[in-house]
């Protein structure tokens, strides 16, 4: 085949703009508007790759997204490389590097400077495709709807006019008029845009795709769909060959012949199936390019004509993928021997128009011809004459594979697709799909319509992962939530941990401190001096109304209606299944008002939980819940010297134990702002939780650091907080619990009321909740006081035979730390029947050996709570 650029014609190219690009290392030129395929043909290059399994030379079959063959690797001028694109769909640009490949792409881009984004669009009518029928539908739609509410997209570059959004391909139609589409270069600086379109009516005007006819050696470079041959001449000013044979079943090739003639292509033969003629084989030159066509006419002996171009038209398949995705049914239309849109279920109105609906212009009378049987030696392998009848060029799948699949008893077209992989390539079976069904039908003695086509899967064209990620990349991949004090944490070298979307300081290392050293130092400060922590992330919910107490009694396992105004109480929540859901301290602000706190991770879930029960179960209760999590910045001031520090920022507040006792709260002016102080402690030490409006959080923090400086005030993070609470045996929901843990398992049966119903109570009476061997919360002391158990370690009995699996397990370590206060390591664990095992020893088998532990109570530090009002008298 000797393709070349014509002197004139080509309405898509701008001959005034020369574009330089590379193909397999060689430097080439084309015109602006050329696709890689048209530019290669213009340069006389038609051999663009090898086939994936048979390593057959392959060329360009089409001029559009149906291309199964001309797959290339592309490196953009930016250096970004695309593993595998269809040469027929990529416009060339200066500096583009193109490489042929053999069916498999290569991923290389690790840092991608490309910019992809997404956008939403609502419209009354979405028209997909700006051909004549699409534009007509759009025109009609504009009579009924404002012009800017009729959205027309077209996959081709700007041609149709300003009212059409070009370079935009619909990927799929989903429920309720939702359509996704991808747009190439929406702005000069954006590579691609993913459109989320919501339409009240959808018009599918996506046209039709020409299909090939299957015959021996039908995969040679130089064998092209007939319409594509004309497209290269008319759109790109490229003559695809000099001596052409046209093999047709229908009238659409008449116009093609005229176009070829006008472009000076000699038509050496027209092989018309309607006249009983057929192409039975092709011959190739040394490179495998087509050099001759073997033709038969009914009865007559095969004759061979020399040709460098074979244009094939087996007919046209309406592009019904979007229709079918939208749950539209298909019907086999004998008139054009193709599947056309039929019925549809409920949903937004969707219609197909024009060629997409089966109105193929100029198709005239069509005589279906799907496959031309082998003759003589074609295929070269007489044992199987079908091995060179290619059905899916992208997958190197042949009629021989198809026969093997059916012979294997795989009679469903879905089975055939899976067994042969026909239709699973980049072209999604656009050229091979219906042909496959027809051949299968012929073999099975069934109607094509009865065999059907495989389910159409979105997206209609391949779309890059980066395009779908759009703007959700890097730091924007997922929101990062920060507290008002975050800037100070950053400035002071905090090491952060992710808690949900929050960034929380885990510890504040000084100089070259290790985490272990930093955490020990922070713990010592909290137990012997004073330390501060940013607790702003704690969930906070304002619960108001005359029935607030009754409501909380139903939500918490323990009782809150009896809580005195001005007091605070720790509460446990269960789900209906009886398992622990959340915990926190809730304070009574007034007769009809409570301030609830939740864990950081569950703040939103608890509010949802409250709303669900209020709205759907107890609408009679006069209670309202409002999130105030971010209204308040919360700072915990902890340690024997906490009182002195708080006194300096809240001078008006009487902090004496008598006036302001444990588990009470007070309004106060704090660092000049109206706020609240809660005397609650998650460490066992004297502690105050200061709440001021978020605006003032950073200022208060800085004030505390300043006034506490003489007392050696120490900021601490979540790790020290965990150590301090663990020394006191306070559980962390989600760490000491895992969704299978009851309050009783945590040793908190005392917090479970027997006098009232609450969410989850009934579940506690199920047989399993009463099992004696339920896992219960205990403490662990490694026999070697320096041995630190890994969290998650499992426990077995001392005499367990570790050589014989499965080894019965007693439980697992939920928390494990080095304790400054205890001068040793310790852990918390959930152990079967744990509370009856206190004093027993157990083994923790680790990869590195076993660690012996003693099972103890869970409260290891200050069990009498003598420290909560401050340093106790020695």
């Amino acid at each position, binding site marked *: 085949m000797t393709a070349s650029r014509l002197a004139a014609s080509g309405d898509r190219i701008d001959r005034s703009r020369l574009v330089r690009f590379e193909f397999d290392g060689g430097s080439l030129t084309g015109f602006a508007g050329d696709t890689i395929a048209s530019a290669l043909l213009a340069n006389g290059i038609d051999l663009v790759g090898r086939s994936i399994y048979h390593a057959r030379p392959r060329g360009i079959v089409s001029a559009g997204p149906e291309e199964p063959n001309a797959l290339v690797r592309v490196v953009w001028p930016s250096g970004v490389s695309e593993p595998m694109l269809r040469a027929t769909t990529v416009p060339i640009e200066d500096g583009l590097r193109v490489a042929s490949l053999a069916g498999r792409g290569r991923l290389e881009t690790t840092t991608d400077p490309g910019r992809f984004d997404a956008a939403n669009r609502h419209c009354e009518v979405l028209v997909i495709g700006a051909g004549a029928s699409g534009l007509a539908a759009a025109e009609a739609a504009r009579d009924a709807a404002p012009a800017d509410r009729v959205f027309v997209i077209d996959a081709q570059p700007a041609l149709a006019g300003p009212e059409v959004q070009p370079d935009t391909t619909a990927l799929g139609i989903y*429920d*309720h008029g939702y359509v996704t589409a991808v747009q190439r270069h929406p702005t000069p600086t954006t590579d691609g845009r993913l459109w989320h379109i919501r339409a009240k009516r959808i018009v599918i005007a996506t046209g039709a795709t020409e299909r090939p006819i299957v015959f021996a050696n039908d995969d040679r470079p130089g064998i092209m769909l007939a319409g594509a041959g004309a497209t290269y001449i008319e759109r790109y000013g490229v003559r695809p060959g000099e001596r052409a044979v046209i093999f047709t079943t229908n009238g659409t090739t008449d116009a093609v012949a005229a176009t070829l003639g006008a472009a000076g292509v000699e038509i050496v033969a027209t092989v018309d199936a309607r006249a009983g003629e057929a192409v039975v084989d092709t011959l190739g030159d040394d490179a495998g390019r087509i050099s001759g066509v073997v033709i038969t006419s009914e009865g007559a002996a095969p004759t061979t004509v020399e040709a460098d171009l074979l244009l094939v038209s087996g007919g046209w398949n309406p592009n019904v993928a979007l229709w079918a995705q939208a749950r539209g049914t298909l019907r086999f239309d004998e008139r054009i021997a193709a599947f056309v849109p039929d019925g549809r279920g*409920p*949903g937004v109105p969707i219609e197909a128009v024009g060629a997409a609906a089966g109105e193929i212009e100029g198709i005239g009378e069509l005589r279906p011809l799907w496959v031309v049987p082998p003759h003589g030696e074609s295929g070269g392998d007489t044992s199987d004459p079908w091995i060179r009848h290619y059905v899916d060029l992208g997958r190197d799948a042949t009629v021989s594979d198809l026969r093997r699949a059916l012979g294997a008893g795989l009679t469903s077209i879905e089975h055939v697709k899976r067994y042969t992989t026909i239709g699973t390539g980049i072209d999604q079976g656009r050229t091979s799909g219906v042909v496959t069904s027809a051949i299968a039908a012929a073999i099975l003695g069934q109607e094509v319509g009865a065999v059907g086509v495989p389910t159409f899967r979105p997206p209609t064209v391949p779309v890059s992962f980066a395009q779908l990620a759009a703007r959700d990349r890097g730091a924007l991949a997922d929101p990062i939530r920060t507290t008002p004090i975050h800037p100070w944490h950053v400035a002071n070298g905090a090491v952060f941990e992710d808690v949900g979307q929050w960034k929380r300081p885990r510890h504040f290392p000084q100089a070259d401190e290790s985490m272990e050293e930093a955490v020990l130092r922070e713990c010592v400060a909290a137990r012997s001096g004073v330390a501060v922590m940013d607790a702003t992330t704690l969930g906070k919910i304002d619960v108001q109304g005359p029935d607030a107490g009754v409501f909380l009694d139903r939500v918490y396992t323990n009782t809150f209606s009896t809580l005195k105004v001005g007091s605070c109480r720790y509460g446990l929540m269960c789900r*209906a299944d009886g398992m622990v859901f959340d915990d926190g301290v809730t304070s009574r602000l007034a007769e009809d008002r409570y301030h609830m706190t939740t864990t950081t991770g569950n703040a939103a879930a608890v509010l949802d939980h409250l709303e669900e029960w209020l*709205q*759907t179960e107890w609408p009679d209760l006069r209670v309202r819940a409002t999130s105030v999590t971010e209204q308040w910045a919360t700072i915990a001031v902890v340690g024997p010297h906490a009182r002195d520090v708080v006194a300096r920022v809240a001078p008006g507040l009487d902090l004496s134990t008598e006036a302001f006792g444990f588990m009470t709260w007070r309004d106060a002016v704090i660092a000049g702002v109206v706020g609240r102080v809660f005397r609650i402690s998650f460490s066992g030490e004297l502690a105050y939780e200061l709440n001021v409006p978020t605006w003032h959080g950073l200022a208060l923090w800085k004030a505390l650091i300043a006034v506490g400086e003489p007392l050696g005030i120490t900021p601490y993070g979540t790790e020290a907080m965990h150590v301090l609470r663990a020394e006191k045996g306070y559980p962390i929901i989600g760490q000491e619990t895992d969704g299978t843990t009851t309050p009783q398992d945590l040793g908190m049966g005392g917090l479970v009321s027997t006098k009232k119903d609450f969410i989850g109570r*009934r*579940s506690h009476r199920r047989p399993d909740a009463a099992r004696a061997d339920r896992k219960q919360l205990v403490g662990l002391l490694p026999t070697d006081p320096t041995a630190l158990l890994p969290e998650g370690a499992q426990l077995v009995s001392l005499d367990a035979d570790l050589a014989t699996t499965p080894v019965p397990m007693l439980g697992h370590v939920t928390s494990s730390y080095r304790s400054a206060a205890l001068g040793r390591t310790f852990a918390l664990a959930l152990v079967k029947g744990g509370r009856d095992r206190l004093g027993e020893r157990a083994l923790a088998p680790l990869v590195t050996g076993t660690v012996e532990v003693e099972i103890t109570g869970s409260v290891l530090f200050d069990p009498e709570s003598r420290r909560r009002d401050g340093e106790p008298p020695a």
Partner: protein
Amino acid sequence: MLLVPCPWCGPRAEIEFRYGGQAGIAYPKDPDGLTDAEWVEYLFLRDNPKGPWRERWVHTAGCRRWFDVTRDTLTNEFLG
């Protein structure tokens, strides 16, 4: 991406909602009076039809109201 009909805010994208499963499952009047079998009915047993059914959604990113709606679980069409 479903278009979920919030009775207050109008149709909104599915991502604004949380799903609540089958509608009309009332918390038992007297849980203590129930057998384990009756309690598990409430706790775990739900219809699971292929076709129209009554379900709950909550408009978490909007008005935070819970509401019931009928949807066909095969076609996803909301039937009011």
